[in-house]
């Protein structure tokens, strides 16, 4: 029976890819292990091998096709004795080595769903009528870093795989070519050491951007981040500090288990001397990264692997910067305030959209920077709506939501018509199993339920 070959999932977060090139043509006989095609994911171009022998009966997706969803049939293989006429009687037999991840991708957690289009009604960070272009978060980050590196010779990027590999998540793609190995520095796998070296380089007059392949690995280096980078300005009576950026993906990706899935927003937010940024949209990634590089303090810039490939409108403005400490109101509303940041915004916006259908008008605030935090915007909103739900993927104990609840209680107690509810990740290490992972993360349904609770609906 003819067998369909499906578009494989070649990375934990891949949802679609570009079928860049076929290395076989219809009628070719292939053996197990032969390379069938090249597929470009959001991270890299990968070769895709045949699992079984057979004849390429029909190519369904042409080379050069972009946005091919995982699990889309891309070709049909025939067994001996079959002809192209048999196509149509295909089986769902495993066709590729990547069959397993593919099956999981079908049951991907809700967070892999497309983002909701909600236009900000609050004053945006650019004038009305500004030309916009669609960019992924990944591209926005690269542009921000490259623009600042063009302006200031002393800004450099260092980290694992940032140069020759073009970035483990392709964020620094092309930067080695433009800036050379002096300014785009591949490090050994030695987070504690290279973070300390970067702190020393900052003391010595440079402006390092340190990429952690993920913030999980920054735990190896957290002493240098906190004790050396964050505290030195104070300990030196203002004589010297560490103007630098620590950046990389933070929080859960998809199916990578407990040691690779943790949100550090609350950890770093606790430290005086650090600034902490955790954007959601590509425009914010760009504008805030440029601000981070120009900031004279150590900045923790928490990115998200799942968001890297998401596209958003980014204003076409020279030197587009967004100041720290300014929240963005994505949607105005009168019934409840939903406060979130980073990928949490996805649940907040989805929930707001669904709630609107039920007649609940939520105001959605994206904090964007966690430290300094825009208390005023949050408090003004809560004073208007009298109810608040916070949303984040991090652990519940000592969360950003906990902190906001305390601040709201202290400063807007009399305005509250219901207790503030914190929607967070669950108080468990991240499980691997797809169903459990989904349960461990915060969900849109939980946000909706919390809103209904505080609005007594």
């Amino acid at each position, binding site marked *: 029976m003819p067998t369909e070959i499906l578009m494989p999932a070649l990375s934990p977060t891949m949802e679609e890819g570009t079928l860049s090139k076929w290395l076989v043509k219809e009628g070719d006989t292939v053996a197990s292990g032969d390379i069938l095609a090249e597929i470009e994911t959001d991270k890299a171009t990968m070769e895709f091998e045949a699992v079984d022998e057979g004849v390429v009966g029909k190519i369904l997706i042409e080379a050069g096709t972009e946005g091919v969803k995982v699990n889309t049939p891309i070709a049909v293989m025939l067994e001996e004795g079959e002809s192209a006429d048999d196509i149509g009687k295909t089986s769902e037999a495993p066709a590729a080595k990547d069959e397993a991840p593919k099956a999981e991708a079908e049951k991907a957690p809700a967070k892999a769903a497309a983002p909701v289009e909600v236009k900000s009604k609050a004053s945006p960070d650019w004038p009305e009528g500004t030309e916009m272009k669609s960019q992924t978060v990944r591209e926005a980050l690269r542009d921000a870093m490259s623009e600042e590196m063009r302006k200031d010779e*002393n800004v*450099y990027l260092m980290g694992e795989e940032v140069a020759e590999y073009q970035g483990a998540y392709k964020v620094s793609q092309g930067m080695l070519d433009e800036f050379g190995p*002096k300014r785009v520095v591949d*490090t*050994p796998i*030695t987070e*504690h*050491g*290279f*973070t*300390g*070296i*970067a*702190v*020393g*380089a*900052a*003391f*010595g*007059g*440079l402006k390092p951007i340190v990429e952690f392949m993920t913030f999980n690995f920054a735990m190896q280096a957290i*002493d*240098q981040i906190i*004790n*050396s980078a964050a505290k*030195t*300005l*104070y*300990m*030196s*009576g*203002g*004589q*010297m*500090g560490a*103007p630098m950026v620590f950046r990389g993906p933070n929080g859960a990706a998809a199916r990578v288990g407990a040691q690779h899935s943790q949100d550090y927003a609350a950890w770093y937010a606790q430290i*005086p*001397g650090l*600034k902490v940024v955790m954007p959601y949209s590509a425009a914010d990634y760009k504008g805030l990264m440029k601000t981070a590089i120009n*900031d*004279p*303090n150590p900045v923790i810039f928490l990115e998200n692997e799942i968001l890297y490939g998401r596209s958003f409108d980014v204003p076409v403005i020279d030197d587009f910067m967004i100041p720290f400490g300014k929240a963005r109101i994505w949607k105005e509303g009168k019934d409840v305030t939903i406060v979130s940041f980073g990928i949490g915004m996805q649940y907040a916006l989805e929930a707001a959209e669904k709630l609107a259908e039920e007649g609940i008008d939520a105001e959605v605030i994206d904090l964007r920077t966690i*430290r*300094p*935090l825009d*208390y005023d915007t949050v408090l003004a909103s809560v004073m208007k709506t009298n109810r608040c739900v916070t949303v984040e993927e991090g652990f519940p104990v000592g969360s950003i939501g906990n902190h906001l609840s305390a*601040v709201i209680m*202290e*400063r807007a107690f009399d305005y509250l018509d219901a207790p503030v509810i914190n929607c967070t990740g669950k108080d468990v290490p991240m499980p691997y199993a797809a169903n459990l992972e989904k349960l461990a993360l915060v969900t849109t349904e939980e946000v909706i339920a919390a809103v209904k609770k505080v609005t007594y609906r």
Partner: protein
Amino acid sequence: MATRKAPATPNISADELKTYYHDMLLIRRFEEKAGQLYGMGLIGGFCHLYIGQEAVVVGLEAAAEEGDKRVTSYRDHGHMLACGMNPDGVMAELTGREGGYSKGKGGSMHMFSKEKNFYGGHGIVGAQVPIGAGLAFADKYLGNDRVTFTYFGDGAANQGQVYESFNMAALWKLPVIFVIENNQYAMGTSQKRSTSSPEIFKRGEPYGIPGEMVDGMDVLAVKAAGEKAIAHCRAGDGPYILEVKTYRYRGHSMSDPAKYRTREEVQKMRTEKDPIDHVRDLLVSGGHATEDDLKEIDKSIKSIVNQSAEFAKESPEPGVDELWTDIYADVAPQDEDA
């Protein structure tokens, strides 16, 4: 440590010897005074004295040039005095006063001087090592020929980040001199009990970093080794390791009773190896100075140290507003009324 060789110092001028004598004695008297002030409750917290190790920093500073950098651990008073920082400012930092180098906010272990290229004063054992390599990274990046002295002890030499730094310093040929001040005790643990291979200077070998052992009780030997290491770094040949064998006479910190070694051991070092006595002998036996000359130096140092103690007592405590300054280089701290 080898028995000291007979003085062979044809190239050392009397002035040079007198300078070393002066600088080492200044550190010793300063530290003795700090010990007194600690006993009087004027200095709080941890206070790690450098007494016995003076030849290490004085010898290396004698080899250094303007613009070279230094970074060390929490046993840092000697380094600061040796690189020319003002004793008043150092002592006032020890007492936590406004006139201290960090306005009283750093204390004994956390002091800095941008002016003198002194980058701390770090309280976490070993953390200064990659920072030193990073200072050298910056110098190489900026294209100057400065070197960075990165001091750490035999205790810190067992921290993983030291070897991460060795690897990258060698890989990138960073102009950094790793100075291992081996005073033979990591707090209360002797090197024998903590270190599988006693020759720490050889630990750079797998990375291709040359290293040598130096008699740290002999300021001239330290200076000579420093010059060699500096030449290596300035030539662009990458890092260099100096394991300087030294000895601290006092406990690890003021609160350490030092029960882990005998009185006799300490006494033997003091009488046979003292770095200051050594230079004193060279000065007198070489006819470079009379006892009266040396008394003059002693007197002037006493006056400097007493002055620093007076300043450190008189200087006011930092204003309460200082609690909230220097947290960020640009803005007021996190909305503190939140």
